[in-house]
């Protein structure tokens, strides 16, 4: 099951040139670009692992792409996303976020129903991959 989070996730995967163009746009707006990765892409998991610190001083998308590629090389079978943070007073939040790498096999999520008093149902989203220990989740 293809995970759809962030921008462009209903489009085919972006090529490196397209990624660079998007990052160039973020830089032109003065946003700080950062790279993050995770092997637990639960929709409520907003804390992915940072790949280096955000890049504040870069002038060109190629620099961020360089880091994306370094991260891809170190972690070939995980999710990687690129974020852009707008530090303008009053905004101060992520304004762009898109996935630039996904594992070759994405097992997806299961829906677990828990029955409670008065026939109430509580729903939980469970990642199939996250049931295996970290590091073995997308190995096959």
């Amino acid at each position, binding site marked *: 099951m293809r995970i759809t989070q962030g921008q462009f996730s209903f489009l085919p995967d972006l090529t490196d040139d397209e990624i660079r163009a998007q990052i160039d746009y973020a830089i032109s707006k003065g946003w700080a670009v950062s790279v993050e990765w995770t092997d637990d892409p639960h929709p409520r998991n907003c804390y992915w692992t940072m790949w280096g610190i955000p890049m504040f*001083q870069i*002038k*060109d998308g*190629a*620099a961020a792409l360089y880091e994306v590629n370094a991260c891809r090389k170190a972690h070939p079978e995980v999710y990687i996303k690129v974020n852009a943070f707008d530090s303008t007073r009053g905004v101060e939040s992520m304004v762009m976020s898109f996935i630039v790498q996904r594992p070759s096999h994405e097992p997806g999520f299961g829906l677990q129903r828990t029955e409670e008093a008065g026939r109430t149902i509580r729903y939980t989203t469970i990642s199939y991959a996250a049931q295996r220990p970290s590091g073995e989740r997308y190995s096959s």
Partner: protein
Amino acid sequence: MHAPTSPASIDLQQILRDAEVQPVIDQLENELIGLAPVKARIREIAAFLVVSRARAAMGLEAATPSLHMCFTGNPGTGKTTVAMRMAEILHRLGYVRKGHVVSVTRDDLVGQYIGHTAPKTKEILKKAMGGVLFIDEAYYLYRPENERDYGQEAIEILLQVMENHRDDLVVILAGYKDRMDTFFQSNPGMSSRIAHHIDFPDYGEPELLQIAGKMVGAMNYRLDFEASKAMDEYIHLRRHQPHFANARSIRNALDRARLRQANRLFQLAMEGSVSVTADDLSTLSGADIRASRVFTGGLAEKK
């Protein structure tokens, strides 16, 4: 650039006009005095890039040409200034995307402890991507006397990026001729990755005088007749004294002359002279220049 699919002929003039590269070359020609071999090389490189563009439009060439350069020459011969112009030319021709110049020295690239160098060098390289990385006094990167020096690590990362990210940044090394030669001898990989070695000659006396004239003009001052004569003598004497740094020495001399001129006007005011004209404020007199210690034997004898 405008590139219809494999046209039969391409107008080189059109590419030149589109890139607006001619004004930059003209500016280089007009604003920089002397440096004939350097200008010739830059014109060659620009022509080569225009032709490469045309070839690419014809579908003749795939790989981007290697554009890393090395500027060698004595201090004050205009290496940094030319590097800035080079960035502009490369940007206009579309060989670097942003055209900014990141100017660094050894300190910015090499770390102080194990594991510090790689992130530091990469940080700088990332900053320079899309533009030109100008490494001043690049020979300091390699210190043969200390085999555990971290400079080697910086050189290795640099080489790797110069090779793999040719489209993303252009590296320009600068330094004194003899020391750069030793640097390249001990780092053959570096030498072979640099396509253009450009040597900056020293300025002659008439050129230095012209430069002085330009600098004075740019500062909105002028030299009176006496001052021009004094400047001429000053250049002649200064050239043979130690630590002569071509145009930079001239700039420093003029800066000090401005101080003396300000002091002279101030003295006049203290002595009761009421008003100064714009002419007084912008004229450097012979005395302002002749007060320099260069006329009394320079650094060597004053110590």
